[in-house]
């Protein structure tokens, strides 16, 4: 295995509110190898975006606070860096694409200028050279008529075009890591398909590692090499895309996979109940003592309420945080997995 370029060790982030502390991220560890795509999957409020923003140094403090952990980027700990020092990393070493392209772009500045700013800052080139790089980048992200796009204002473009501009802006300084936080959630399906195609193409040509944060398993399947599933501020399962999709071991992952209906399902099981997870995620203002998923888990045991599960290794590189993996636990047959996601060929 290659030396990871990014390693997160036991990261914990809390927000201080008037009512008390909200433990948004409660001990998250993962690593990212060069050129790889890691998807962090989870529902809203599970701490996935907070983790990303903490790594990029984008969270204001207070109210947020890194309680513990290390963020090692090529061996240097970023938690010790000042805001000023982080600025030289952002845009150059790693950059980001957000969900909402409208608020992430400056509405009073032409698109071209915004791209050039980063190029001039990090690559120390003249304005004319920067413009050339920017136009070239706009062409690469598939915008028709890049010279004209260069002079447009963000509000004159559609959501899909703006997202392409965001990607161009993020990749113009050849970052080693691209953080993509729900990059296609705000787009329509046909637009989403185009943007995902583009991101996959760019990944193959530039070799940038991607951390993709999303709740959409369909998007994950198209992009990810490895997947970490997050729930209530912790990573509950981690493995390669195939391990997670075909051999999931955590009941939460089962629930996530099972609750997705398929466009390709055969007609006879339409109108049947979808597998779903009852209730709502816990409020991280007062996280439960044991496993955070126990209250919603159909397989919960007494142990789950007593203490949080250990991390078990299911397979090479496949880790699961669940007491069901303990040798003393009753054997449970996964309701999803290899058999249940097959049968897609019919759609082709």
């Amino acid at each position, binding site marked *: 295995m290659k030396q990871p370029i990014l390693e997160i060790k036991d990261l914990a982030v809390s927000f201080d*509110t*008037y*009512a008390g502390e909200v433990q948004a991220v409660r001990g998250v560890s993962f690593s990212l190898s060069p050129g790889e795509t890691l998807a962090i999957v989870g529902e809203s409020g599970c701490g996935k975006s907070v983790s990303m923003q903490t790594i990029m140094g984008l969270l204001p403090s207070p*109210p947020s606070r890194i309680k513990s952990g290390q963020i090692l980027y090529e061996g240097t700990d970023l938690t010790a860096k000042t805001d000023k020092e982080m600025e030289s990393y952002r845009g150059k070493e790693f950059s980001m694409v957000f969900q909402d392209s409208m608020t992430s772009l400056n509405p009073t500045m032409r698109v071209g200028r915004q791209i050039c700013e980063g190029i001039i800052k990090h690559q120390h080139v003249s304005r004319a050279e920067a413009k050339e790089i920017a136009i070239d980048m706009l062409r690469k992200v598939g915008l028709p008529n890049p010279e004209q796009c260069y002079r447009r204002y963000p509000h004159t473009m559609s959501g899909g075009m703006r997202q392409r501009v965001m990607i161009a802006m993020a990749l113009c300084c050849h970052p080693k890591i691209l953080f993509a936080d729900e990059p296609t959630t705000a787009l329509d399906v046909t637009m989403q398909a185009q943007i995902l195609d583009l991101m996959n193409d760019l990944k193959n040509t530039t070799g940038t590692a991607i951390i993709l944060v999303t709740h959409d398993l369909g998007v994950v399947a198209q992009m990810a090499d490895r997947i970490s599933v997050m729930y209530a501020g912790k990573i509950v399962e981690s493995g390669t895309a195939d391990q997670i999709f075909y051999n999931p071991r955590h009941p939460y992952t089962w629930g996530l996979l099972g609750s997705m209906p398929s466009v390709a399902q055969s007609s006879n099981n339409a109108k049947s109940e979808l597998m779903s997870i*009852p*209730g*709502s995620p*816990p*409020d991280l*203002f*007062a996280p439960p003592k044991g496993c955070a998923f*126990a*209250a*919603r888990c*159909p*397989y*919960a*045991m*007494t*142990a*789950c*309420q*007593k*203490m*949080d599960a*250990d*991390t*078990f*290794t299911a397979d090479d590189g496949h880790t699961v945080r669940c*007491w069901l993996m*303990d040798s*003393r*636990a*009753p054997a449970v047959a996964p309701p999803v997995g290899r058999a249940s996601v097959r049968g897609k060929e019919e759609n082709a």
Partner: protein
Amino acid sequence: MNENLSAAAQLTAQDFVSIPEESRKTDAIVRPSVSYWADVLRRIRQDKVAMCSLVIIGIMVILAIFAPIFSPYDYETNNLQAINLPPSAEHWFGTDQLGRDLWTRVWIGARVSLLIGLGGAIAPQIVGIFLGGISGYFGGWVDMLIMRIIDVGVCIPQLVYITLMMLVLGSGPMAIIVTIAVVGWMGAARFVRGRVLQFKNREFILAAKAQGASPMRQIFRYILPNILGQQVVSITAAIPGAIFTEAYLSFIGLGIKSPMTSWGQLAQTGSSLYRLYPYQLFIPGVLISVTILAFYLFGNSLRDALDPHLRD
């Protein structure tokens, strides 16, 4: 394999028994329940600037009510034996050119100024909420008519209204409040209309409409409570303006006339001889400034406290 062997070792075989489904509470809410207004109150209390402003305003109000009652002097009786006395133990703020006790006059003036401040802020809002609400909710020709009236109205300089109104209504606190309302309702109505338009197509209003709620129910139960917070802020923000308008009118001789008094009128009288008796100008001047500042800062804090985006 296991990163934390000790945790697993603490568990026994009995712990690996499934728990019955009924005993799980999946939809519990753990945070204490806080209503909107309780939350607003909490944030106002936490805000030092807001609390300081509130204390200053409170002191002004208390003094305006009680100081003249407990003062041995009358605000309108001349005493030519004691004219233009500097502040002393006998006359805390000194006396004016006619020998009237300034301490008493200042707090009688405060009554008038604060009354005009409050009335002048509320009156245009009431008219504005009513007409702006109708205009925004019903739209169509009603909206057209009200908006065109406002368009024409705002083109006429304020001073023209004020001078005309004061000439017609004469001087006195009520006249000033009415004048401010006539000038101020147009801005308030526009603002309210904008807010109503903003809320009219919110999904919760549509939901009420889909349930068959009448327009009046939609306005009074749904739209008004939602815009009321902003209107309270507008009122607070308009108080300094109204106090200032009164001061300014009295200063140019259009407002309150002697022997009745107000802060503006006191400042006006004081200004004629301020080189000789600076306290006659500075005392009302400082009171006007401090009060306006306190209301302004409180209005700002209130706006922040009512902002739903800041709820955590």
